[in-house]
C-alpha cells in the first residue's frame, strides 16, 4: 500500500545500492531520487503513458542563467487566502518563495500551502480525458469527450428533463469559474447546482443571514489580533486554518487574551487555549443557552446594544430559563460553574469573538446552532466592532466566493434568491430574455399528492442538496419532487467521500445514466462505484494554471495569476464549461458578454471579462467595486496594507489609497466610486464610505408591533440619524435625494422600471444596475441596504428559538424522549425521515450495540476529500494511514492496542471500515474521532485498481463517511457529520 522504508529496502537492496554507496563520489540527485522508491513508480508511470502530449514538468535545480519570472497566486487549499509566490523558469514552476508582502499570511504557509508547487508537477494528476468502456478506463480526446457527454446529457434532458442532471460544482473554482458554472446551470435550466458549502457552512450562511443579513464572516483573521476573548466552538483552526493561528496566537500573547476552546476533542487548537472545556458532541445549543443563562442571571448582557440593534432578545431570555445549570450539565456534561466562568469572560472581557466551524454546522440542528452562537454575540454586544464578531472560518480556498456566486440550490449569484425578481435581474445582466431562461426549465407533473409546477414555478423551487443527490437518484420517482430522478451527475471538483452514507451514494452512482468527473484528480466519484460505461473523466487544471479571483473567508477578494500553462492535457474550467455549453447549444447566449480568446484547445472567456459582468450585477452583495484592475493593483501593492486594520498606510499609491485589502465585500457602487470595501460588517462606528454599516433589515419593518429598524444606532456622518429601510428609487424620491442621480443613472432606473413610476419606485439598491442609488445613499452617509436590527428570533425558520435536539443516533436514549429531533417532513424535493430513523434507533437499542460516539474532522496535511493532497508525496508521507482515535479506556476494554488494525462498524447498512487505532486521551471515553480525507478503501477492500493507472493517490484509506449515518438539517439539507454511533473491534 505504501512506499515504506522497509519495502524499499527489499525492492532495492543488493548490488545497485552497493554500487552507488561504494563509489566515493556523490550519489547524484537522480539516483538519490530513484533510491526513494517512490520516484521509481512515478517515473515509470509517466513512461507507461507514452510520449505524445503527456508532458512531465521537470523540477530541479535552478539554472541561474535563465530568467526567473515571479507569479503571484493564492493557495488553493483553505479559506485563509495565503498568497503563493511562484518562481517560474522556462514555463516550469521551479521554486516557492515566502510572500512576505501579503497582510494575510506574511510569507507563511501550512504544510499544504508550502507544498502547492507539487500540484503542477504531480505525476498522479489525471493526464487526459478518459472514459470507461466495459469497465476499463480508456484514453479519449477532448473532442470525443465533449461530444459524447453533450449527446448523453441531451438524451437525459429529452427523456427525464433538465432537472435530471445534477451539476455539482466546487469551492475550488475561481469566482469567475463558480459564477460561470452557476450561469451554466441557469442556461441548462435547473436549480440542481451545488457545491461544498452545502456540507461545510450552508447552515452558517442560513443561520447568520437570517439573523443579521449576510452569510459571511463578520470580521477577519487579522482583526482577531484585537480580541480580548476568543472562543472556538467546533473549530480546530490549528489544523484546518493553520495560518490564522498566526493572528490568533499573536492576539493571545499581546493582549493576554482568553482563548476558550469548547470541543469534544482536545484538539491542537485546544492545546494552545487558556481554557479547554470538553463537551458531549452535538450539544451546542444546550451549551450556549447554558452560558446565556448565566449571562442573563447575572445581568452581564449588553442592554444598550440589545435595545438599539437587536429584536427578540426578550423571547430568548425567556426560553433560556429552561436551560438552568443542572439541566445543561445533564445534557452536555459541563458543570454550571465552568459555563459561568465562560459566560463572565465572554460578556465582560470584551471585545470577544466567537469562532465556529464544522463542529457547529454539520448537524441536524446546524442552522439552529448557528443562531444560538449569533444570539450569544448579540446578547453581549459583540458584533460589528473591532476585535469582536462572528468569525466563521470557512473551509475551501473559495468556498465564500462560490457561495456568493450562487453555486447553491436556493439562489442565483449574490444571494438574489430564486424569485422572479432575481431571475429578471440576472437576465438583464446577462442580456437574455427572462422568458428564454424560463423556457429552459422543466414543467413538473403532479405526483405523490403534490401539485404540478409550470417551468416558471419550477425555476423558483430550490434544487436537491448535494447531501441527498443519491437519494434523488434511487428513491421511487413519485417521492422526488421534480420531473424524474437524478439521471446524470456532472461533478466539477468535488469529492465523493465527504458526504455521509457512502454505501448509499455508491448505489446512487451506479444508478446514474451518466457520470462525468471534471477534476485534476479522479476522485471517489471515479473510483468508488462499479460502473462499467458512461463514465467520463475530464482533466481540469488547478487554479495555479489559470487566471481568476477568489474570495477568502474574510471576504477579501484576491486575484491569482496563471503560474504555468495547464499541465498534461488538462484545461481550465472556463474553457471546459464553454465547450460543454457549445455542445449543448446555449454557448452563444451564455457567453455573449465575454471577451473570448484562444485557449489551450479551444476558445475561452477571459477571467477579467467574467468578473466585469459580475461587477455589473453583484449589487446586493457589493461585488461591484472589485474590478479586475483594482484587484490586480491590490496584489501588486500588498505591502501597502496594515496588518491589523487591513487598510492602506498613508502614502499608498493612488489606485489603492484608502482601500481595505482585497476590497472585502460589500464594496459598494461602481469601481469608479472607489468604495474601500468593508473590513468589519455591520460596524456603525465608522462612516459607510469607510466601510461602516448596520444590520441589514431584510425581514420587514416591524414584527409584533415592534420596529425591526435600528434605534439610535447609525454610522457617523449619516444624514438619517436612526434606523431606516433599504434604499429604493422611491425612498430617494421621498427624501428628495433623487435629484442627485445623474441622467445616465436615472435612465438605467427608468429602463429597469419600464418607465412605470410604481415599478421605478420599487427599483432598489440591489436592482439598480447603474449603482446610482447606492452612490447617493452613501454620499449621505447611509447604508444602501438600510439600517436594521438583528433578529434574535428567526420566525420563518424551524425552531424560531433554537431548542436542544438530540442527534439522530444519540448515545442518550433517555434524552431523546425529552429532546427528540424534528418531525419527518419534505425538504428540497426529497423526504427527510430523521424522526423515524431516530425513533427506530431508540427502539432497536442501537446505543447499546454501538456505544461509542463517532465524530470526524480535519488533518492539517490533507484537505476535503483529500485526493489532491493524498496524491502529493510531500504531504502523503506525513499521514500514511487512516486511523481512529480511541480513548485508552475504550481501547483497553476492547483489547485494542495503539497502532493495531480495528474495524469501526456503523449502525446503518452493516457498514464497517478497517483503520488503524490511535489510542489517545485526546478523545473522551466513549468518543472516537476519524479524519475525513481518506478514500480508496471501501469496507476493507483496497480500490487502488479502480483508479486509472498512474492516477491513484499515494495514500488510500477508508472513508469515515462509509460509517456515518442519516440526518439532515431542515433548513439547508446539511448532513449530520459530527455525531453518529459506532462500535470498534480489533481486526
Amino acid at each position: 500500500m505504501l512506499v515504506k522504508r522497509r519495502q524499499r529496502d527489499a525492492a532495492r537492496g543488493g548490488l545497485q545500492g552497493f554500487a552507488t554507496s561504494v563509489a566515493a563520489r556523490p550519489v547524484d540527485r537522480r539516483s538519490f531520487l530513484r533510491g526513494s522508491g517512490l520516484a521509481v513508480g512515478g517515473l515509470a508511470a509517466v513512461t507507461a503513458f507514452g510520449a505524445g502530449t503527456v508532458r512531465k514538468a521537470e523540477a530541479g535545480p535552478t539554472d541561474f542563467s535563465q530568467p526567473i519570472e515571479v507569479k503571484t497566486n493564492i493557495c488553493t487549499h483553505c479559506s485563509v487566502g495565503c498568497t503563493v509566490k511562484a518562481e517560474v523558469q522556462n514555463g516550469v514552476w521551479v521554486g516557492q518563495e515566502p510572500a512576505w508582502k501579503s497582510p494575510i499570511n506574511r510569507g507563511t504557509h501550512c504544510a499544504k500551502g508550502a507544498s502547492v508547487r507539487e500540484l503542477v508537477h504531480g505525476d498522479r494528476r489525471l493526464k487526459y480525458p478518459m472514459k470507461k468502456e466495459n469497465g476499463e478506463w480508456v484514453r479519449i480526446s477532448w473532442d470525443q469527450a465533449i461530444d459524447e457527454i453533450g449527446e448523453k446529457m441531451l438524451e437525459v434532458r429529452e427523456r427525464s428533463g433538465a432537472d435530471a442532471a445534477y451539476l455539482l460544482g466546487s469551492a475550488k473554482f475561481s469566482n469567475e469559474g463558480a459564477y460561470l458554472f452557476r450561469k451554466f446551470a441557469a442556461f441548462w435550466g435547473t436549480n440542481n447546482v451545488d457545491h461544498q458549502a452545502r456540507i461545510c457552512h450552508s447552515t452558517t450562511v442560513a443561520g447568520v443571514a437570517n439573523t443579521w443579513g449576510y452569510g459571511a464572516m463578520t470580521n477577519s483573521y487579522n482583526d482577531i489580533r484585537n480580541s480580548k476573548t476568543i472562543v472556538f466552538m467546533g473549530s480546530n483552526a490549528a489544523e484546518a486554518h493553520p495560518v490564522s493561528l498566526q493572528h490568533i496566537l499573536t492576539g493571545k500573547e499581546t493582549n493576554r487574551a482568553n482563548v476558550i476552546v469548547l470541543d469534544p476533542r482536545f484538539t491542537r487548537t485546544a492545546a494552545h487555549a487558556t481554557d479547554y472545556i470538553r463537551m458531549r458532541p452535538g450539544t451546542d445549543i444546550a451549551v450556549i443557552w447554558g452560558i446565556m443563562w448565566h449571562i442573563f442571571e447575572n445581568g452581564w448582557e449588553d442592554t444598550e446594544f440589545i435595545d438599539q440593534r437587536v429584536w427578540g432578545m426578550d423571547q430568548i431570555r425567556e426560553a433560556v430559563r429552561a436551560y438552568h445549570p443542572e439541566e445543561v450539565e445533564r445534557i452536555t456534561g459541563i458543570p454550571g460553574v465552568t459555563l459561568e466562568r465562560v459566560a463572565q469572560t465572554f460578556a465582560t472581557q470584551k471585545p470577544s469573538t466567537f469562532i465556529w466551524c464544522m463542529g457547529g454546522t454539520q448537524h441536524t440542528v446546524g442552522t439552529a446552532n448557528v443562531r444560538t452562537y449569533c444570539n450569544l454575540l448579540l446578547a453581549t454586544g459583540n458584533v460589528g466592532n473591532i476585535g469582536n464578531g462572528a468569525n466563521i472560518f470557512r473551509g475551501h480556498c473559495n468556498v465564500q466566493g462560490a457561495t456568493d456566486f450562487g453555486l447553491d440550490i436556493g439562489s442565483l449569484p449574490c444571494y438574489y434568491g430564486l424569485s422572479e425578481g432575481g431571475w429578471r435581474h440576472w437576465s438583464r445582466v446577462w442580456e437574455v430574455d427572462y422568458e428564454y431562461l424560463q423556457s429552459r426549465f422543466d414543467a413538473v407533473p403532479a405526483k405523490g399528492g403534490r401539485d404540478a409546477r409550470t417551468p416558471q414555478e419550477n425555476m423558483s423551487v430550490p434544487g436537491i442538496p448535494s447531501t441527498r443527490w443519491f437519494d434523488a437518484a434511487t428513491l421511487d420517482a413519485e417521492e422526488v419532487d421534480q420531473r424524474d430522478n437524478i439521471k446524470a451527475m456532472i461533478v466539477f471538483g468535488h469529492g465523493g467521500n465527504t458526504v455521509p452514507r457512502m454505501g448509499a451514494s455508491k448505489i446512487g452512482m451506479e444508478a446514474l445514466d451518466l457520470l462525468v468527473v471534471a477534476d485534476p484528480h479522479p476522485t471517489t466519484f471515479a473510483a468508488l462505484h462499479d460502473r462499467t460505461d458512461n463514465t467520463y473523466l475530464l482533466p481540469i487544471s488547478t487554479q495555479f494554471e489559470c487566471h481568476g479571483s477568489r474570495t477568502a473567508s474574510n471576504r477579501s477578494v484576491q486575484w491569482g495569476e496563471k503560474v504555468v500553462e495547464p499541465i498534461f492535457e488538462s484545461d481550465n474550467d472556463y474553457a471546459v464549461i464553454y465547450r460543454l455549453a457549445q455542445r449543448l447549444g446555449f454557448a452563444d447566449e451564455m457567453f455573449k458578454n465575454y471577451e473570448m480568446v484562444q485557449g489551450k484547445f479551444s476558445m475561452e472567456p477571459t477571467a477579467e471579462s467574467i468578473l466585469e459582468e459580475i461587477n455589473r450585477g453583484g449589487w446586493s452583495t457589493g461585488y461591484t467595486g472589485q474590478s479586475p484592475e483594482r484587484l490586480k493593483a491590490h496584489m501588486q501593492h500588498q505591502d501597502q496594507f496594515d496588518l491589523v486594520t487591513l487598510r492602506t498606510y498613508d502614502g499608498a499609491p493612488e489606485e489603492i489609497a484608502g482601500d481595505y485589502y482585497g476590497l472585502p465585500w460589500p464594496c459598494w457602487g461602481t469601481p469608479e466610486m472607489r468604495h474601500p470595501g468593508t473590513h468589519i460588517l455591520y460596524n456603525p462606528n465608522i462612516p459607510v464610505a469607510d466601510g461602516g454599516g448596520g444590520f441589514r433589515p431584510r425581514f420587514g419593518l416591524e414584527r409584533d408591533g415592534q420596529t425591526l429598524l435600528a434605534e439610535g444606532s447609525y454610522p457617523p456622518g449619516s444624514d438619517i440619524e436612526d434606523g431606516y429601510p433599504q434604499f429604493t428609487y422611491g425612498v430617494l424620491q421621498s427624501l428628495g435625494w433623487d435629484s442627485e442621480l445623474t441622467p445616465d443613472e436615472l435612465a438605467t432606473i427608468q429602463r429597469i422600471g419600464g418607465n412605470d413610476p410604481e415599478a421605478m419606485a420599487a427599483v432598489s439598491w440591489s436592482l439598480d444596475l447603474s449603482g446610482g442609488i447606492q452612490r447617493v445613499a452613501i454620499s449621505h452617509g447611509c447604508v444602501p441596504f438600510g439600517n436594521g436590527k438583528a433578529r434574535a428570533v428567526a420566525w420563518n425558520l424551524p425552531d424560531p428559538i433554537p431548542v436542544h435536539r438530540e442527534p439522530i443516533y444519540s448515545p442518550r436514549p433517555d434524552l431523546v424522549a425529552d429532546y427528540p429531533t424534528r418531525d419527518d417532513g419534505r425538504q428540497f424535493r426529497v423526504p427527510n425521515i430523521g424522526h423515524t430513523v431516530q425513533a427506530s434507533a431508540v427502539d432497536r437499542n442501537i446505543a447499546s450495540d454501538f456505544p461509542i460516539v463517532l465524530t470526524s474532522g480535519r488533518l492539517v496535511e490533507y484537505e476535503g476529500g483529500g485526493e489532491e493532497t493524498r496524491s502529493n508525496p510531500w504531504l502523503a508521507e506525513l499521514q500514511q494511514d487512516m486511523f481512529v482515535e480511541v480513548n485508552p479506556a475504550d481501547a483497553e476494554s476492547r483489547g485494542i492496542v495503539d497502532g493495531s488494525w480495528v474495524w469501526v462498524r456503523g449502525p446503518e447498512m452493516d457498514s464497517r471500515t478497517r483503520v488503524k487505532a490511535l489510542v489517545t486521551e485526546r478523545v473522551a471515553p466513549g468518543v472516537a474521532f476519524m479524519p475525513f480525507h481518506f478514500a480508496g478503501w471501501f469496507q476493507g477492500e483496497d480500490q487502488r485498481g479502480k483508479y486509472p493507472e498512474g492516477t491513484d493517490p499515494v495514500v488510500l484509506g477508508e472513508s469515515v463517511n462509509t460509517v456515518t449515518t442519516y440526518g439532515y438539517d431542515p433548513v439547508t439539507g446539511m448532513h449530520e457529520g459530527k455525531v453518529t454511533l459506532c462500535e470498534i473491534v480489533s481486526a
Partner: protein
Amino acid sequence: MTIFTKMSRVIAVLALGLFAVIAQPQAAQAQDIINPTAESVTEDALMEALNGDAQVQGRVSIPDDLSSGLIKPANRGWADTHGGPVRTVNLIAVVGMIVLLVAFYAIRGKIRIDSGPSSERIQRFSATERFAHWLMAVSFIVLALTGLNLVFGRAVILPVFGEGVFGTLSAWGKVAHNYMGFAFMLGLILSFVYWIAHNIPDKVDMHWLSKGGGLFVKGVHPPAKKFNAGQKGIFWSVTLGGAALSFTGVMLLFPELAGGEAGWQLYQVIHGVVAAILTAIVIAHIYIGSVGMEGAYDAMGSGEVDLNWAKEHHSLWVEEVQGKSSDGTGDGSSRPGTQPAE
C-alpha cells in the same frame, strides 16, 4: 564508564506519558481547571524529570519510530565515549602491544630451535584446520585494518593521502568490514569445532605458565600438549572476543535488532573495546607465529613442523602422536603424524 549506566537508563515515552496520565484524572474531574497554556510541558521540567540524560520522546505522524525522539542528550555521551575512551583504548592496545613486542624482540631476539632443525617433519595441522585458521586470519586482518581506519583514519591517513584516497579507501573499507565479518564468523566456528577439544585447560598448563612458557629463558621448554597454555589463551581470546565482536557486529549491521539507539550504542562501544584488545592479542600471536619463533610458522604454513621444534614446544603432543602411531593398527609404513590430530 558512566556512559553505560547512562545509556541503560533510557526513560522513554512511557515514563513521560505516565506523569501526565497520573495528572489527568484530577484534571478530568475538576473540569473547570484545564488551562492547557498554563499546564504546558516545559523543557526545563521535562529535562529535570528525566535527569538530563534520557530521551525526550513524543509522537510523530511519520511511521518511523526513530524520528519520534525529540532530544536525546545521551547521544552526546556516546559520541564523547566513542571519540574519547574508545579511541584511547585502541591507541593504547595497538600501539602498546607493538612497542612491547619490539622491546621483546630487541631483548630476547628470535626464539630458535635449541636443538637445531631435524631432518624429520611431523604433521601438525591438516588442510581443513589451516583453512579455518587462514579464513579467520585474513578476514580478521582486513577487519582490524578497516576497523582501525574508522578510529584513526581521519587522523593518520587523511592528512597523508588526502581526501580522495582516504574517501575511496574508507568507502571500500566499510564494505569490506561489513562483508568480511561473515567470513570471520565462519572461520571462528570452524576453528572452535576443530580445536575446542585440545583447548580445555589442565594441570600441564599450570606448569607451563609457571615456567613462563619458556619464552623468557633460553633452553627452558616446559612440556605441552597440542596447544600450550599460551596458545589456549589465544584460542579462548579469539573464541570469546570473536564471539563478542560477531554478536555486536551483527547488531551494528542490523540496527533494528539492537533494541533501540541505546542498545546500538552499547554494542558499538563493546565492539570497539573488544576489537582493540583482540587486535593487540592477535598482533602478539602473529609475532610469535612468524618473526618471533623459528619454525612456528610452518605449523600453519605447510602444516608440517620440524620434529625437534615440536619436541621442544609440544613434547606431550609429540609423544601422543608418535605413541598413537606405534600403537597403531600395524600399518608401519605410515609416516608419523600423517594422521590428523583429531
